[in-house]
């Protein structure tokens, strides 16, 4: 039966995450971007909200059950505060959730409790590759099976916290499809770039490129499950974050337009601006439902969940670009100045078509 309202439990979670996002993440965002670092206490406080912990079953030291819908709701709120902060807080999930979704029982027992019971620690994942036609289903990084191990060869980019991570998931092409491998940080042939990557946005998160020069990992480090559910979940999480960023930009530009005088009235009283805001709101609402639909399809194991997740992230990245661009436009010259957050949101907004693999919730 149709329902477009989160459960009471989900509403409580949304409220808690929203409080953290507005009072901690949002406040830290500007300086974090400029100084290229998030205060560690902000990250730990986000970790203590327990969003990831709540999606891991008790058997592996968590206290809940995986729900893509709940994850999407939390992801939107986190990104509403700040996208870099949202990604940073969720970094351990990049390692833990693929194991939960595609790992063997042994792998789950071996890795999940360690991550869940500890304070926030950087565990990461390497999916994106530095080529214009990067396709998660047609990776150029390869895995070759040998008698006692796999050999991973290739190059990755946009690997968050690679310099500090305890371990990472590396996605590589094994025979015909993408597979996930657990790679410990000290592995021979694994080379983390000497310098941080320089990106248009997300400067508060340290990103590195990673070279895999014949890295050998034991056969037991292959996650046996399919890649599709991992990709679908990441697409939905990224799409949900796009909504959070768009919502932030919409609300900020709406409030600015209501406050600023022009020709004897408020900017928002001009139809040219009011209609832009109406369209932004409509677009956000429509795409949010598309994202919820995809998350719901994942949770209910619908056959076309992958299609829905693909449509959701594609629609959400377009929507985020449109909304953040208009938010800058509504602020005019002020939108272009880094004192206001809308230009950062526009830089972040442009990235959603590229960010798949950077978030899992």
């Amino acid at each position, binding site marked *: *039966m*149709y*329902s*477009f*309202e*989160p*459960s009471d439990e*989900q509403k409580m979670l949304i409220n808690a995450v929203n409080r953290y996002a507005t009072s901690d993440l949002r406040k830290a965002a500007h300086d974090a971007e400029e100084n290229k670092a998030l205060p560690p206490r902000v990250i730990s406080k986000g970790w203590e909200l327990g969003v990831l912990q709540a999606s891991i079953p008790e058997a592996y030291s968590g206290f809940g059950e995986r729900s893509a*819908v709940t994850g999407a709701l939390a992801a939107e709120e986190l990104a509403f505060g700040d996208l870099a902060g949202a990604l940073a807080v969720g970094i351990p999930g990049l390692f833990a959730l693929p194991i939960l979704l595609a790992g063997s029982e042994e792998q789950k027992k071996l890795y999940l409790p360690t991550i869940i019971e500890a304070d926030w620690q950087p565990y990461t994942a390497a999916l994106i590759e530095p080529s*214009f*036609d*990067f*396709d998660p*289903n047609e990776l150029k990084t390869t895995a070759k099976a040998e008698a006692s191990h796999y050999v991973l060869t290739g190059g990755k980019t946009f690997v968050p916290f690679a310099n500090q991570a305890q371990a990472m998931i590396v996605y590589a092409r094994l025979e015909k499809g993408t597979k996930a491998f657990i790679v410990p940080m000290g592995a021979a042939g694994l080379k983390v770039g000497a310098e941080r990557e320089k990106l248009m946005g997300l400067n508060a998160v340290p990103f590195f490129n990673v070279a895999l020069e014949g890295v050998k990992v034991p056969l037991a480090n292959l996650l046996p499950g399919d890649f599709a559910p991992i990709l679908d979940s990441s697409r939905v999480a990224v799409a949900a974050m796009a909504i959070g960023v768009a919502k932030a930009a919409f609300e900020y530009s*709406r409030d600015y*337009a*209501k406050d600023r005088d022009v020709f004897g009235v408020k900017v*928002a*009283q001009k*139809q040219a601006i*009011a*209609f832009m*805001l*109406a*369209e932004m*709101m*409509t*677009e956000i*609402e*429509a*795409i949010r*439902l*598309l994202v*919820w*639909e995809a*998350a*719901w*399809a994942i949770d*209910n194991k619908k056959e076309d969940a*992958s*299609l829905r997740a*693909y*449509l959701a992230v*594609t*629609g959400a990245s*377009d929507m985020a670009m449109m909304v953040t661009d208009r938010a800058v436009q509504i602020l005019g010259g002020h939108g272009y100045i880094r004192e206001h957050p809308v230009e950062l949101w526009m830089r972040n907004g442009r990235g959603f*078509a590229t960010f798949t693999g950077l978030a899992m919730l």
Partner: protein
Amino acid sequence: MIDFEMPEKIAGTRLVVETVAVNMMRPVSRYFDEHEHEVPWDYINFMHTATRAMGGSSMVPSEKKEGPRFGFQRLAVMVEVLSWGDAGIYLCTPGGMLGSAAVSATGTPEQKERFLKRFRGETPVFDAMCMTEPQAGSDTSAIRATAVLDKEKKEWVLNGEKIFVTSGHKAMLDSEGFIVVWATIDPAAGRAGMRPFVVEARTAGCQVTKMEHKLGIRASDTVSILLQDCRVPFENLLGSPEVVTDKATTGFKGAMATFDATRPIVAAQAIGLARATLELLKEMLADRGVTIRYGLPRQKLTSVEKDVIEMEIQLRSAWWLVLKAVWMMDNGKPNSLESSMSKVRAGDVVNRITQKAVEIMGPLGYSREYLLEKWFRDAKISDIYEGTGQINRLVVARQILGYRSSELR
């Protein structure tokens, strides 16, 4: 709990309606497009018989019984499928439509019984809504039709001219139906003076004067109605007697409450047409060896693939907005924001999709051999009636900005 599963009860209805759309609408789509003002009686009679057999009487959901309500959700799904069949013929569906929606939204229980029971009879009956006038479309406060109370005879005397009345001919001349006329009881009061009146077929002083020739939805009649000292009983003013003297904006609020219910339904019509277009486009492309490679990064897609994927995204997301608006309606949640957003979005989407489909198919899209060009013409009305896209943007903007109409004109 968020749930995107269609309730079984609605899914059952949907299957039945789909059979009608495939077998009784599509085959005659082109015929009724090219024979404007002919009436699709086969469809009408079938729908009437079928609805009676199922114990229904009207497209408009009846009052609440026990348990969860999905009347408006069901209606939206039915309209989507019928409009997928043919948007013009769908508008000829007998039983309560916009007029009944006004009766349901603003009438007393006695009025609902009195005016709506006619739809349960032997023959198909229609209704219509009369708002627009030659000098007043979107600006409903400029409406000049008047209603004057004759206290001795306890009758209202209506005068004025209404235009663009959908199904007005069928309501007043082809059946014992009725129209709901919006007129003012106090021309100085603006919107506050507006009230809805029911005028039944064969009422003296009410005349159908013109049938329009239109860009699309040609199977549906659109007429002008002239009211000259047209007398209706006192009880034909919809709502409780106090609304006669109440100087607040209750009158117009009735119209707005009606729109909250009808806008998502008009949006559903747009979605059905958009889905029909996208499905046919994909079929025609597949016949010519073009399949859409969903899942690929955009850099690897062809321009046509990108267009189709974008259409898919627009269509689905707009449909969920529509369903959310009717779901709120069924659950008694205030939905005028969602209702207008669904209309804005669906009106945009159906126009973009039908325009793009004609463009992608080139000469085949422009040819009357195929239905794409017809659907492109049919689509445009969804962005015009029941509030243009611009009026609905105003409604949305005022709500999200917290502005009264005087603050955002």
